[in-house]
């Protein structure tokens, strides 16, 4: 059994800005330091309100019962879907025996990546899904 090692991490969030409806997509908020296509993400830890009551931007985090209503898609700068519609539940560490979802160095574009509403159960407008991105800086040649 293995688990991810945190070298660098940051909290990213995607906010549900309107009344939840199936199929709606909400993009991640910009984080200037990692938005220059300068990072490779190798792990993601998702959180519900049970693990974090408020996001760093002071928004209410999605309820634990709302986590299975969401899927996320990670997109690179060429709009290629690196991870398509992965259940958010699979990234919540406390729901997965303490394991962290590990990826093979995704060169993701944060603001083109999004969370999608698959069901409206236990979701409310104004809530955010918060996740911790484990990343490394990449050196461009």
């Amino acid at each position, binding site marked *: *059994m*293995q*688990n*991810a*090692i*945190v*070298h*660098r*991490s*940051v*909290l990213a969030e995607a906010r549900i800005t309107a009344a939840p409806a199936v199929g709606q997509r909400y993009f991640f908020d910009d984080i200037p330091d990692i938005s220059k296509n300068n990072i490779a993400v*190798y*792990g993601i*830890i998702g*959180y519900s*309100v*049970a*693990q*974090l*009551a*408020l996001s*760093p931007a*002071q928004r209410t985090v999605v309820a634990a019962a709302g986590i299975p209503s969401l899927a996320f898609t990670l997109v690179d700068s060429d709009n290629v879907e690196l991870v398509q519609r992965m259940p958010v539940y699979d990234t919540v*560490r*406390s729901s*997965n*025996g*303490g*394991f962290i979802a*590990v990826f*093979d*160095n995704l060169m993701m574009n944060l603001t083109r990546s999004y969370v999608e509403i698959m069901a409206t159960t236990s979701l409310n407008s104004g809530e955010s899904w918060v996740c*911790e991105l*484990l990343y490394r800086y990449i050196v461009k040649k």
Partner: protein
Amino acid sequence: MQSCKTAKTNLSSVGAFFGKFNLDGATADFPDRRGTRSKIVVLDYQASGPKVYARNKVINFDYDEELNNANILAIELLSTAQLLYVPTQPVKDSPQSELAKGFLILKDNCNNIVMKTPLSNLCKALNGNKTTFVNLKNIAWGSCGPVFNAAATVSSANALAFRIYFQ
């Protein structure tokens, strides 16, 4: 039905696949001996004084030369489920229910934030008894600390106790 040989081959290729992440430094095996040393760091925030609790304020750790120069390899946050009282008794540890109210910020000695994680992510008892592995160097320990940002306040009768594994 797979033969034993095929199953073994599949197992070894799976092992090789996951071994790649270990070689890359992205993952480590359980049980991995993280560091040669460990210690408990208690943050005893109070109603007044330098460690006063206030919403959205970083409560800094004490300066720690040893941790500044160390390679920090794992961080655990103890809860009352694991240890009822911290060494500065009678101040208690924080109960697990309080850990969702804040997050930990770790900075390097250039003042860059290198890790920002909810406190609940560091508590083994809340995460399938899995320790949170890190690999952090040049940490300015005295500039690091937790922030409580939830509207409900935390009790200054509690404290946070971190176990730090380092070498």
